[in-house]
């Protein structure tokens, strides 16, 4: 396949993921509203928001790094998409996954996060710093079960290549990692709760207590870019766990169904459990997820 065709398919995939992500976040808000007894937004609200944000006439800037924050965030989201195969077994939809393996993905997650954090910091808003300090603390805690789970998988499959991990899970749901290596699977799913950032792990954004801060400072076009990045990341996070634990996807329908279920697993947990304080959430990851993660490796050590 020529590089142009490859590029075209990749961009098309990105477009699908973006729109799917926007739809997913609208659905999320709808569900949360319904649980709370509210009517909620229409499912097309994100597109309206995007158009509105792009159309806002006044744009303000706190400085160069403030401006780079969304760029980092967007690059981080797109990069995550690029370095992960979208559909398994398809050369067209494999994106740029030939450039790196699972480790690249794990660490590239932080690219957007760190850049965004620095950009928001440049805004000088104290709430930004508070939110970021919590976010980083929680992120560090999530890393522990996450790495344990990933290493358990790497030992299980003797590879760090995401394509090969998916390949090993083909041939029926009984080959999915969640069934072949349930302990690592559960560990990763618990880590996924933190990674997706819904309640009880949403003190980072803390929608109620910190209603302003970055979202206020980043308005208009910036907000549009951030929300688009967020939409992509929602899907990509879910897709990562899909690929690791649930056999990946061989067509877009499977992709959409699986990412939806994984994403909504975290949403449903979120609407049931109240928010943790940051020290609670950090300690939470050091308990059951950590113990399971250690177990997941121990069973491969003997």
């Amino acid at each position, binding site marked *: 396949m020529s590089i142009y065709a490859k590029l075209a398919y990749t961009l098309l995939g990105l477009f699908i993921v973006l729109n799917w992500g926007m739809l997913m976040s609208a659905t999320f808000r709808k569900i949360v509203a319904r649980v709370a007894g509210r009517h909620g937004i229409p499912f097309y609200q994100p597109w309206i928001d995007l158009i509105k944000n792009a159309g806002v006439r006044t744009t303000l800037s706190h400085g*160069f790094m403030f401006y780079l924050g969304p760029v980092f965030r967007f690059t981080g989201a797109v990069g995550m998409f690029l370095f992960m195969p979208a559909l398994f077994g398809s050369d067209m939809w494999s994106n740029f996954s030939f450039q*790196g393996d699972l480790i690249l993905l794990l660490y590239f997650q932080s690219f957007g996060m*760190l850049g965004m954090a620095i950009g928001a910091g*440049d805004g000088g808003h104290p709430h930004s*710093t508070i939110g970021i300090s919590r976010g980083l603390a929680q992120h560090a805690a999530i890393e522990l079960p996450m790495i344990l789970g990933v*290493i358990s998988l790497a030992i299980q499959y003797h590879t760090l290549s995401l394509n090969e991990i998916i390949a090993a899970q083909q041939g029926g749901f009984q080959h999915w990692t969640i069934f072949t290596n349930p302990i690592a699977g559960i560990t990763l799913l618990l880590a996924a709760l933190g990674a997706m950032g819904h309640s009880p792990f949403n003190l980072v954004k803390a929608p109620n207590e910190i209603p302003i801060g970055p979202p206020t400072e980043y308005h208009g076009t910036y907000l549009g870019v951030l929300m688009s990045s967020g939409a992509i990341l929602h899907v990509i996070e879910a897709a990562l766990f899909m690929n690791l634990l649930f056999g990946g996807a061989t067509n877009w329908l499977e992709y959409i169904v699986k990412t939806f279920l994984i994403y909504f697993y975290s949403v449903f947990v979120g609407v049931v459990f109240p928010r943790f304080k940051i020290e609670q959430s950090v300690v939470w990851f050091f308990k059951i997820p950590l113990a399971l*993660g250690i177990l997941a490796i121990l069973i491969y*050590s003997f």
Partner: protein
Amino acid sequence: MVSPIYIVAAALGVGFAIGVLGKLGKNFSGILALLTIGFMTFVSSEWLYAFYVGNQVPTYIFTAGFKPPISINLLMGPKEAFLTTMVNFIGLLGGIYLFFNFGRKGRNAYVVYMVFLMSLNVVIMTRDIFNLFVFLEISAIATAGLILIERGNRAVGAGFKYIIATSIISSILLIGIIFAYFYTGTLNIDGLVQAHLSTTATGGIAVFLIMIAAVLEMKPFPANGWGLDVYEGSHQGFSAVVSVATATASYYVLYKLLAIAGPVGSQWDYYLALMGAVTFIGSNLLGVKQKFARRLLAYSSIGQLGLLMLILGLRKYLGDNLDYVVLGILITNLFAKTGFFWLAGIVKAKTLKEWAIIRRKPFFLFLMGTFVFALIGFPPFPSFFAKWTMVMNLARQGGFGWIAVILIGSFLEAIYLFRWFGYAVKGEDTYKYDFNIRWHKITPIVILVAALYYAGYLTSQYTELGRMIDFIPLFFVLVLFAIDFLPVAVKNTIAILGMGTYFYFIYPDLDNLRLIFEVIFMVGGILTLIAGYAYKGKRSGFYPVAILMYAGLTGIIQAHTTLEFFFGWELMTAGSYFLIIRGKRSMPHALSYMLFSVAGAYAILAGFGIANIGQAFPSLDIMNNIQYFPNWAYGLLLIGFLTKTASVGLHIWLPGAHGEAESDVSPMVSAILLKAGVFGIVLALIGMSKSDFDLSALAYTLGWIGALTALFGNIGAVFQEDAKRLLAYSSIGQLGYIVFAFAIMTQLGWLTGFTYVINHFLYKAVLFLTVGAIVLRVGTHNMYEMGGLIKKMPWAFFAVLIGIIALSGVPPLSGFTGKWLFYNAIIEKGWYFQGVIAMFAGGIAFLYLYRLIQTIFLGQLKDNHRNVKEISIWFLIPIYTLLTGILVFSYEPQWVLKPLGNMIAQYFPNNGLHWEGSYAYSHLGYWTGAGVAATVSVVFVIAFILLKIMTRKAHKLEQFDIVFSGERPERPETTHIAYNMYAGFYKAVWPLTVPLVERFWTWMSDLVHETAGFVRRIYSGNGQAYMLHIILYIIILYFITIGGNI
């Protein structure tokens, strides 16, 4: 050749003449006395020279025309020539130093002084035991008289105790002589030796009495209160002479009489070693608690006597090297201790803290530094070579316990000497009085210092190993000392040119492994030196010590032998100590750095000693496949190197030392110096990889140490308020990764290790240089006092941004190369849990990295920083050079990693990684540095351009144009979230931040101090108690040596 009898004759003759010609005046008498001592020195040194040249045989001098045993005979051999020369030389300098002090007491003081020296000469030369007794008495009486040249009760008391004590000792000696004569019928020492006295029970009593007297002359701990009082109570000028000249003679008495006790390896050797060990450790332990300078010197002197006694007792182990070792220790002690006492006489500061006044005259500080480093046994002083030879020989013969004793005693000595030196260099100088320089007092000291350096050089040239040492860098250091008066720019240029030229000449001879480290040391050194142009004025003393450190660093790289390596290692330690202590609040941290370094160096020395067993030549290759006690040898070497890499447990010195150092020193000691420890670890591990033994437990332990270091270093960094301390803790963590990666001991592990080594050098230098330069601008280390500096220092901000992205391991910068290799290495090796801990530490790194950039550059600009400027261009040049390095290494990692892989293939099978273009493939995964970088860059640029177009009309906001909680901030302080930034995280992880290691070392330190404080109570100052000590000592020794065996 002048007969040595003229030494005696001249002293006696002139002594009588002064009495007769007394009317000629004090000064004339004094000059006559000095001339006489000069003549004595000439006679003995003439003999020494003849022996040195090699055309002289030992000669007996028979007195009164008869041969022994009828008459007394003296012997002038090489040892006698050397010792009398030393005694007379020190005596001559002492005479000059004390010229006016004697003068004030009248001309008889000169006579007594001459007689004193003459008696020591005879004590050294005589072969007749009764004659020995007589001249010991003469010297004791003369000493008591000379103690009294100092006024005051203290001196009188000291003199009195001295007389009583020496009387007891003489009586015992005399009784011993009587017994010996009774059983053998001779008083000649050689005759007594042949009589084999100790073979009979009753002869054993004679030997016991003679030996105990000789031992007591050496002031053994704890029966030495009288000796301490003499050193402390008499005039400094004379304390020095007693401390060294008398001690030298006493040592030789013991040496001669030991022959009577039995041949080499007899029981008395062992007792002597034991008493020496107790004295060496005991005195130095008590010194630790001491606050007064002269008392401290007294403890040190007695400690050295103990060491000499110990060495003599260990002659079985040392064999032919005994004389070399004794010479090294003795000569250092002679010159350094004398000089130190005399310096104390000039500075006149009583307590150690008061010695802060010495730096008002920097040259005096140089003198003091020379003495301290010489006494501890640093290169290039003779004691360094002596200690080396001693440890090598002891290890070879299996005397490991004795090695421990010697090193522990030396370490205790290092504690108090470096604490004292720290007060001198950095203590608070709030004292009103000053000290004067008198030329007749300073000249002898300067002569001693010059002699010390020259003696060091001569000692090194005496052995084949020593001759291999490259002294050129050290010479360059001396040149820099000499031109220290020049302005900073000139010296900086000379230093850079010097390092550059040296590097140019040596780099073709280096293999790839050494080249990596040498580039970090030398190129890194030059880059950090460039930052030095930002400084104004003279920056006194900076360049010699900086180059001293680099001389040491290049020394360990170029070393072919373990001696060269250790030589370089110690030079580097000394240089870095001086660099670190230059910081404003560095005194305690420099001390702790030095003590860990000294202890580490001793571990290395012991390790080399064990490695050397059974080897013909101590080249560095002996570290490969050590045959005897390999776990101990490698373990000791690794512990030594781990002190330098500040691994957990041995890390407490680092945060303060690096955090408080000057702006351009921090990167030198962090980004560059720490790699010396890594280089050592790499050498040790290479050796282990070639071992026939299973050393995996050692590597496994090392791996855990590395992983835990990474974790605790990074957690420590998160909670720092001080930017430089944050970076310092970060270095601990990073070095933890490096240690861990090398401990894996596979190709991938080592590739990871080297990647981290290169990366850490690059980004830590960038971060420390930038933060250091910012500190120079804003005048504080505290991050919460900064903020918003991105507006003022965009270039610095960009540097830190790249630095933290690289450090955090986020793709596409070079930190990720390390992370990727790391995962592959740990999974391949199977070290999952250690690996996870290290990786978890990596996640924590985000916290402190964000804190660093946020609280310094982002957030709110403080009012007092509204006019600060961008950091100095002289800092920006090296910073951006290093940034280029980071970018190249990020985009084209294979340029470095491919040759590295081939190099590592020498040690480990080359199967971990292979390259196809820019694609790296391991057994587990794949990744391309260039590809990822290109992809990310393209997306980034597109996003950037799009956003720029869409927000082209963006309105620029002012600082306080933010709204939160319905408030509009007015002051930056209320809005800048920086202090205690990770309070929430702290609540979660505080159990991991409990400073258990600090508490452990504080506890250890308290233990040593409390023990010293407790034992010190035996020195009540009461003369009767001191005499009782002597008696008890004799009784106890009797039970130990003879007991009921008669």
